[in-house]
Every structure is written in structure tokens, then in C-alpha cells.
């Protein structure tokens, strides 16, 4: 973080936006007085954070990104501890505690250990522990991280209620809707301020820069159109959604350029800009306009180098992606997954959504053959799912949110290790590594230590590592959280290309933005599949307006399922 000048007025709500490593947490820690600036000054309430941090501390609430609660203490004990070390008077404590727990919906859980709360409840309790002393300044580091949309909405309701008391707040976030709720947004990039202003003023800078490309009559293959778009002058980024392309451009005459180059039935309309588009427009963003065109599987030089693998993936043209029939999983008395019938077609992108504890992870683990199935069954890439089927693993690629890479090994060593795990060796392994690096656009030298790579490059490396064996099905767990938007768009483009070659992709995520890239959505709750279909189909079945955002769609479906299960219980 270098040379930042930044002031927050009393009562203002400031959002801090930026990719992982942009300096959001560093900035917040400085404001909270737990990190000293190497040079320059940081003053909070006019007090110096170096020498007077403890005076500042009494007047602020700081909610860090990681653990903020003591798992072995109950909800009440956590709250009481937080109040006592912040000198909350005994006579005021009870009233504040009651109103906070009420707001957080935790009144019935006061005796439960914090370790046994869901992710959403933990965040709400954590916010309570930072509001108990009624701070003048609230510093929140990604409060919505890893929290399902329902809990996130409740969290913001709490914040809005507290805001009415003229509290100043600084909130780091990766959610653009959270940023939009702030009075002012600061965009950080590599430790520097990229933009600073009200959300409205920032969006104004994007006027005439963001467009949506669709087709009036029969849709053109998006692949071809996207190749043509890339060649247009001033193109900064292309976001590929299931039914359209969203472009960010520098060119003032984009519309004319596009009409000239693209087929006649193309419709170019201005699209609603997002705050993040500012990152893409920034001149320092590396524009990768080369096409994602992996060596086609099954022909040419690659085929001769890996004959078995390529032939296998190509010959099996009609095998399906994933099919489950009445799949149920129980842990003792508890039914974690309840009679799920789900089909993911070959080459399809499916988003698996649901609140924390809905059973998403359990379902994925079962499909991967890692959890025993109580009833029903599943077939993945033509292989029946069971704990014993060894061939199953070859059909499955998995990329976790935390990118399971070894930081003390080079990129090449990591890939070689994963290749060996999948049973590839020698020339086959080398060819697989070359192919996967080419597909994912891994441009860094393979000799680089993973620890020295940026989040975006690590993400590509993790993706390369999970597709080395050309799995039939690829599972992604919040794959693009914390990554800068340009890299994120590029990532989904790669995923699209893989899908077009027959790879089936399932995404579990809390970022509903990620779900927007998928062909179909599957919503889970309490172990059941409560809705599935394309976004348009879901909107229709829930009788919502066509321009409903993902979050409202999700919350409506969850609320609908909730009331349905209630009436079922009554009947």
C-alpha cells in the first residue's frame, strides 16, 4: 500500500472495493490502529493511530475477516466478553444485548456455543459483538464473505438500522451491491486509490462504455461473435453470459464499429454499468484479447502425443455429464440430502446454490464418491458412483475456493505433482501440463514459486491442475472470489471453451454473480432441490419481473420453499 490520502467524514458510509491483495485489509487495519503506517500519518477522530490506538479502540468496532468469535463460548458469553473488555456499563448491557440479539435473530440461540452456529449466524453475532459498545466508527472487513444471500441481507438490515445513529462506517467488500449501498466508494488497486466518489458519480464515468450484445433472430454461435468482438478497437473486456455478451470498451464509436463487423442480426444495446467495470477500464489492466482456443482434443499433434486420453474423451460422445436418481444421504438420523433428481447435460454449466447447510457440499462429495449414498444412485461420465469405483476419480476434476496449491513449490512442480496424482507420467504428463497451461492462459514461467504469484494467476494454475486429466465433470467451489474482474471474465471464458468441448461444469457458490455465467441454476434448501432450470425459466415459474436480479430470485425461491414446507407440515 503506497501513498494513500483518504478522509472519511463523520456519519459517512464508505465502501472499499478491490481484488485480493489490493490493500483493503491493510487500509482497514491501519484505521483500526492495529497496523502502523511505515510512513505518513493515520489519524482517527484526530488521534494518532501509532501512539493513541487504545483511546481510539474504545470508540471503534473492528470486525476482521477471519475468526472473531470464541468457538467454545456461547453466544451470550461471547457478547458479554466483548462488552466487558470495551467497558460497557453493566446497567446498559442487558438492554443493548437484547435489542442486538433481537435484530440478529439470535434470541433463541443464546446458550449455543459459537462454534456450532452457521456461517451466517456467526457473522451476525460477530457484528453484534462489535456494536455492543455503540462505536462511533465501524470498520468491517468483508462482512458478506462466505455468507449466503439470506444471511447477507439480514446483516445489511442490521447495519442500516445502526446507521441511523450517525455512525461512520468503512466497509471492505467484494459485492458490488454492498458497495452501491455506501455513500462513497473507494476503489483500490495494487495498494493505490483508483477511484473515489459516490456510486452515482463513479457509474457516470462508465456511461457509454458498457454494452450488451444479443441477437434479434436466430442466435449466432457466441464463440464466433466473441472472436470478432475481440478484434474491435478499444475493447477492454468481454463477459460471456449464457445468452449474451457484455462488453466494456474504450472506443467512443463502439456501436458503429460493432455493427460494421458483426452479423446483421446483432443487437448492441447499452448495458447497466457496474462499479467493477472501472477496474477493467483502467489503463493498467492488462488486456488479454488473444482468443481462448485450446488445441482441439482428438486431432493434430496433441492427439498423437496423448492418444489414449484424447481418444477417450472424444469417442464417448454421448455419455452424459451427471445424473442422480433419488439420491439421499443420511448422517445418523439427519438427512443431509433428500431424494435429489438432478441431471447435468454434457457441456453444460450448472450453478448449485443454497443457504449454508443446505446440503450442497454433501451432494458434491457424494457425486465424487467421497460420501456413502444411503438411497438412490448417481452416474458421472458413464461411471456409476460408489465409494469403491476407482475409475470414477478419473472422470472428476475439482477446484476448491482456497486453490489447493503448494506455495513452496513452483508452478511447474505443482502441475507435475497433480499430473502424477492422476496417474500421468513422462511425456503424457508433460503434454497434459502444456495443454492445460495453454487452455488456461498460464503465461508465467513454470519456474515461478506459487507463493510469489498473484491471486489471479494462482486461480489459473489451480484450474490447470484440476483439468490435467481431462475430466468429464469439473466441480468449482467459489472459483472467482477475490479475483479482479478482468481475470474473472477471462476465467469464465476458459470455462465456456472447456464446456463447448464436452466438459460438464458444476459451480457451488455464494456469489450470485458467478451463477450468472451458468446455463442452469439448481437451488437447494434443507437437503432438497427446491427449484432448477435456466434463469428465465425460474423467473417465469416464480412469476417475477424479467429484469429481477439473481439475489431477489434466490431469496424468493427460498421464501417460497419455506412457506411450502410449512404448509406441508401443517397438512
Amino acid at each position, binding site marked *: 500500500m503506497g501513498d494513500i490520502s483518504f478522509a472519511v467524514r463523520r456519519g459517512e458510509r464508505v465502501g472499499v472495493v478491490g481484488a485480493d491483495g489490493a490493500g483493503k485489509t491493510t487500509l482497514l*487495519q491501519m484505521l483500526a490502529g*492495529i*497496523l502502523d503506517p511505515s510512513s505518513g500519518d493515520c489519524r482517527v477522530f484526530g488521534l494518532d493511530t501509532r501512539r493513541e*490506538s487504545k483511546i481510539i479502540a474504545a470508540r471503534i468496532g*473492528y470486525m*476482521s475477516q477471519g475468526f472473531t468469535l470464541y468457538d*467454545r463460548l456461547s453466544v451470550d*458469553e461471547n457478547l458479554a*466478553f466483548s462488552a466487558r473488555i470495551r467497558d460497557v456499563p453493566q446497567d446498559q448491557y442487558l438492554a443493548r444485548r437484547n435489542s442486538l440479539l433481537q435484530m440478529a435473530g439470535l434470541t433463541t440461540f443464546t446458550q449455543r456455543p459459537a462454534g456450532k452456529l452457521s456461517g451466517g449466524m456467526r457473522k451476525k453475532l460477530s457484528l453484534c459483538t462489535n456494536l455492543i459498545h455503540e462505536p462511533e466508527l465501524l470498520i468491517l472487513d468483508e462482512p458478506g464473505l462466505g455468507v449466503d444471500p439470506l444471511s447477507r441481507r439480514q446483516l445489511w438490515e442490521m447495519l442500516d438500522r445502526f446507521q441511523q445513529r450517525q455512525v461512520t462506517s468503512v466497509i471492505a467488500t467484494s459485492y458490488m451491491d454492498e458497495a452501491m449501498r455506501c455513500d462513497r466508494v473507494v476503489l483500490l488497486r495494487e495498494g493505490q486509490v483508483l477511484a473515489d466518489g459516490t456510486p452515482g458519480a463513479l457509474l457516470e464515468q462508465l456511461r457509454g462504455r458498457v454494452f450488451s450484445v444479443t441477437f434479434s433472430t436466430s442466435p449466432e454461435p457466441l464463440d464466433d461473435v466473441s472472436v470478432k468482438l475481440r478484434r474491435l478497437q478499444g475493447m477492454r473486456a468481454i463477459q460471456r453470459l449464457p445468452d449474451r455478451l457484455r462488453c466494456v470498451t474504450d472506443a467512443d464509436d463502439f456501436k458503429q464499429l460493432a455493427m460494421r463487423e458483426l452479423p446483421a442480426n446483432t443487437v448492441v444495446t447499452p448495458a447497466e454499468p457496474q462499479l467493477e467495470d472501472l477496474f477493467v477500464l483502467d489503463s493498467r489492466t492488462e488486456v488479454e484479447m488473444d482468443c481462448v482456443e485450446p488445441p482441439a482434443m482428438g486431432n493434430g499433434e496433441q492427439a498423437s502425443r496423448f492418444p489414449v486420453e484424447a481418444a477417450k474423451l472424444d469417442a464417448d460422445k454421448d455419455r452424459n455429464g451427471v445424473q442422480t436418481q433419488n439420491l439421499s444421504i443420511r448422517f445418523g438420523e439427519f438427512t443431509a440430502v433428500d431424494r435429489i433428481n438432478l441431471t447435468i447435460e454434457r457441456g453444460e454449466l450448472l450453478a448449485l446454490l443454497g443457504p449454508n447447510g443446505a446440503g450442497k457440499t454433501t451432494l458434491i462429495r457424494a457425486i465424487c464418491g467421497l460420501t456413502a449414498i444411503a438411497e438412490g444412485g448417481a452416474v458421472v461420465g458413464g461411471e456409476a458412483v460408489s465409494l469403491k469405483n476407482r475409475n470414477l476419480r478419473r472422470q472428476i476434476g475439482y477446484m476448491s475456493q482456497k486453490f489447493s496449491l503448494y506455495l513452496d513449490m513452483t508452478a511447474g512442480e505443482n502441475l507435475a505433482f497433480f499430473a502424477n496424482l492422476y496417474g500421468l507420467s513422462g511425456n503424457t504428463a508433460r503434454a497434459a501440463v502444456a495443454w492445460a497451461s495453454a487452455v488456461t492462459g498460464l503465461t508465467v514461467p513454470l519456474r515461478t514459486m506459487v507463493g510469489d504469484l498473484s491471486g489471479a494467476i494462482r486461480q489459473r494454475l489451480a484450474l490447470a491442475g484440476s483439468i490435467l486429466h481431462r475430466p468429464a465433470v469439473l466441480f468449482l467451489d467459489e472459483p472467482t472470489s477475490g479475483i479482479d474482474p478482468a481475470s474473472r471474465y477471462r476465467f469464465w471464458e476458459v470455462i465456456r471453451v472447456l464446456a463447448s468441448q464436452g466438459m460438464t461444469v458444476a459451480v457451488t457458490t455464494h456469489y450470485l454473480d458467478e451463477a450468472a455465467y451458468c446455463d442452469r441454476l439448481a437451488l437447494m434448501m434443507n437437503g432438497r432441490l427446491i427449484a432448477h432450470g435456466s434463469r428465465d425459466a425460474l423467473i417465469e415459474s416464480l412469476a417475477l419481473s424479467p429484469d429481477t436480479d439473481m439475489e431477489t430470485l434466490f431469496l424468493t425461491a427460498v421464501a417460497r420453499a419455506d412457506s411450502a414446507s410449512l404448509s406441508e407440515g401443517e397438512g
Partner: protein
Amino acid sequence: MNARRIVALLLKETRELVRDPVTLALAVVMPLVMLFLFGYAINMDVDELALGLYDQDNTPASRALVARFAGSPYFDIIEYRHNTRDLDRSLQQSRIRAGIVIPPGFGRALLRDQPAPVQVIVDGGYPMVAGLGMAYIDAVIAYFPAPRPEPVEMQTRVWYNPSLNSINFVIPGLFAVILMAFPPLLTTLAIVREKETGTVEQIYASPLRSAEYVLGKLLPYALVAFLEILMVILVGFVWFEIPIAGSLPLLFVASLVYVFTTVGIGLLVSSLARTQLAAMLITLIVTLMPSFLFSGFLFPIFTMPYSLQLYSRLFPAGYFMEVSRGILLKGLGVEAVLPNLLLLIGYTLVVFVFAVWRMKQKVA
């Protein structure tokens, strides 16, 4: 200093400790396990020394000598051999620790009042056992067939541990070692765990000051440590029947000082380590290892080279060991143990001041 904040932290820390059965069991059971293991394992007394005998003489006199060995509780005659080669092999295979060869003509020489040589072969592999064994064999032979008048008579009195029972020396030493093994580990893990999970950032960003944090965090562990030492003293007294020559209250006071030394060291380590694994390794290296080697627990410091004697003064276990042995074995009073006690108090203060100074309450 705000008492209310300290109490809040104290309460929180105690609750976490009580609800963690594994750590609690470790704190209570491990010291006892160590006390019993070492109490029985470390035995430097020699009795029932395994002997091999080869009586080449086979006269009434030689048989009388053999009977002296057989009748002594210090020896256990494992083998009667009939050639030197067999005796050799028994020594090589460690079946016996010493071999005695009575040559032909032994009885005749005694009768004529001539010097009667006896060969004694001792396994020097364990120098301590060899030395004691030789002394015992020497004593038996010196009194055979009857005590011989010497021009100068030596009258030996062993003070403080008159029975020369090594358990009386090991157990009071173990008090110092056990206390140095577990309390620092528990303390340092409790603090570093918060660093590792990240909850400590909430503490840093709260009005809780460093000194308050240190007190609130340490007192529960100091209490656990004090209970530990009461427990091991009780077991040492009741089970191992160690004598208590001095004042028990004085030992408790000294223990209380030492308890703060040990948790203070844990605190110091936690200010240096970032992960629990590193904290654990550093603790083992700065506490357990030196308290075995450089405290005088088993290996006397006064026989070490001067440079290592100085080095050994860096570790506090030795100071407490002198106090604990002094009170229990020598019956020393306050004025005699005061120098070591003052050293411990000074040491503890330095550790605390340094640890609080290191605890900047900043993330980097």
C-alpha cells in the same frame, strides 16, 4: 489497569480451558505420568549387581569369600563359571556387570598370611554403575576374612540423604523439570492459538491494554501450574515417601514464584512465534531440554566446563531445583534459599517486562 477488563479476560480464558477436555487432561495427567515414569526409571542406586564367579581355587577360604558375595543384598550371583572364556562371553552379552576370578592358591596364601590376589573385571560401559560396583566389591574384599586394622581410620557420615537413596534426589528435581515442561506450553499455545485463528485482532482493536491482556491470559494458567505443583509434591510425599526436612510452606511460596517464571517463559515464546507448531518447538527447546541437561537435575553443573556453567545459569529450572532440594533434603530455611529465590523473582520480572514490551498489539 482496569480490573473489570482483566476479570472479563480471565473468565473467558478459564471457560475455554475448562471446556477443552484434552488440554485439561494434558495439564493434569501428563505431569503425573512424567513423575511416575521418571520416579521409577531414574534409579542411580546399585543393588543386586549381576555378578559372574569363577572359583579356580575351590578351598574352604575361597568358598567363604563366594558366600560373602552371595549373602550381600548388593550382589546377585548370576553365574558360576568354570573357565575364563565363558566369563568373557557373559560380560560381552551384558548378562553380568562384573566378573570375579579367584585364582588357585588363594586359600593357601591366606593361610600363610601372604597377599592373596583376586581378579575383578568390571564392565565400564556404564561408568556410574561400574564405579559403585567396584566400591562395593572392594568393601566386601576389604572385610575378608576379617576387618584389617588401618593406620588411619576413615569415619564417613553422609549428610542430607543419609541412605544415599537416589529417589530422594530425583523427585525434588523432577518438580522443577515438570513445571518447566507443561505450564509454558499451555500458556504459549493459548496465546498463539488466538494469533493463528485471528481472534487476537479483535483484542488488539479493543481498549484492552498489553499488561491487562498478559495478566488476564496468564492467571488461569498460573493457577493450573500451581495446582500441578501441589499435586506432584503431594504424590512425591505420599507415594515416593520423600523426606521433608525443611518447611513445606516455604516450598509452596517458592513454587508460587517458580510458577510465574514458567508461565512467563510461555508468554515470552508466544511473543516470538506466529504458529502453534513453531511455539511448541521453541518451547520444547528453551524449556524442557535445558531443564533436563543444564539444571543439575541428573548431571551436576559444578563438573561442567566453566563456559557451560555460565550457559546453564540462563535457564531458571536450576535455581528452583536448588531451592527445592535445599528445602526438602537439607532443611534449609528462608535465609539460605533467599539468594536463589531472589534470582528467580528477578528473572521472572525481566521475562515479563520483555514480553509485555514485545507485545505491541499490532498485526505487523
